[in-house]
């Protein structure tokens, strides 16, 4: 692995802590679907992956999800890897976004959302069910249905929460020179 900066190390640690707290203690139930909640943590993971890159995204997803599972009792590796995969892919696709410059318009929103939807699709409709079938010899219909539901919900959450966060974050980067009192 290339030399990882101290800032990236810290971003992984804090990002995973955020992922854990949101995933473990914050539950917004999904209407009509029992026992399902929106996973706010993917919105934050999307933002961190776009800001700190694919490796950070991968590790935040992996560490954060593992900690959540361990705090319940036992890890579900296939889904943990799917979270890691989402972080990695979003980081790869969205690394072109320059949030620091304060420019985050329609084009950037579109880029981010395409990136996150594709990343979720691959993670939850290919990686998670694929591993479930390989490891647990699970029923194909079941795991794809499960994966599709998770993927769609997570894409909605990331789309709303991640986009709002990015818009807000990019606005905090506005240069002072552009402002006048009225």
């Amino acid at each position: 692995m290339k030399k990882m900066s101290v800032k990236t190390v810290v971003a992984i640690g804090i990002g995973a802590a955020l992922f854990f707290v949101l995933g473990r203690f914050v539950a917004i139930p999904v209407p009509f679907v029992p026992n399902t909640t929106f996973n706010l943590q993917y919105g934050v993971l999307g933002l961190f992956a776009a800001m700190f890159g694919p490796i950070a995204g991968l590790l935040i997803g992996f560490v954060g999800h593992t900690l959540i599972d361990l705090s319940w009792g036992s890890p579900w590796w296939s889904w943990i890897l799917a979270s890691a995969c989402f972080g990695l892919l979003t980081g790869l696709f969205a690394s072109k976004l320059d949030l620091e410059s304060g420019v985050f318009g329609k084009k950037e929103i579109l880029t981010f959302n395409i990136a996150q939807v594709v990343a979720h699709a691959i993670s939850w409709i290919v990686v998670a069910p694929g591993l479930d079938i390989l490891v647990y010899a699970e029923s194909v219909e079941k795991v794809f249905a499960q994966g599709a539901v998770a993927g769609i919900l997570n894409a909605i959450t990331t789309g709303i929460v991640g986009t709002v966060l990015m818009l807000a974050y990019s606005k905090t980067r506005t240069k002072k020179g552009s402002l006048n009192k009225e």
Partner: protein
Amino acid sequence: MSKNAALSYLPRQSVVHRLTGTAKLAFFLLWSTAAMLTYDTRLLAAMTITGLVLFSVSRIRLREVKGALIFMMILVLLNLFAIFLFSPDQGTHVYGTKHVILPLFWRYEITQETLFYLLNFFLKYSAVIPVALLFILATNPSEFAASLAGIGVSYKIGYAVALALRYIPDVQRDFHNISQAQQARGIDLSGKDKAFTRLKNSAAILLPLVLSSLARIETISNAMELRGFGKHKKRSWYVQRPFERRDWVALAIALGVLALSLGLTLAKGSRYFNPFQ
């Protein structure tokens, strides 16, 4: 919040606790890999029993993990039910034969194969759960980072994990304070609003949380650099303990189980133990 409190380290005097973090982590990973690879009923059953024995040796009482156990049982049972719902013939699919016990309706029927498949699926989890619980409950979080380094993970990643563990309580406290202050302004996640509104509202809590976390990343990385983090290719660990005989024994057992799991699969050319043929 205490009702669904997250599992955490329970210090005890036991042989499991005395194992080094590295040994426990390696054991846990090898053991889970072995359980993932095989579908051999005999091996999975043996692993489950061994896991339970280890659990009793650890002096952690069952009632201390009652909540977690019930939660996981529900999760596994829901999974079993979902498998049956989506593909009632999964057993036949796996084992190739069909012995109907009780026809239900439409395509649903209970077969010996399906029941046996579901039993195996259950065993796959029950083989791992006691060991996973032990890993969480009997490993001092301080040993976590050193253990990861011990099994060959870059110490930077190991330290990122340590930082996550270190700052989870802080992030949780921030989240709590921020959401209270936002509730006072009428923004509530647990209210009766529509799901979509609540998702958007959640951003009102997440934004300050994320921005203050980003500021915190800055401070922490400064503090770490000022104290020489990342200076060398390696670092030493205050909490690391030297490997003793019992650690090697644990490692050998886990390797043995993994070898057995691999061996059974390779010898038979199949992951399954099939009593129907």
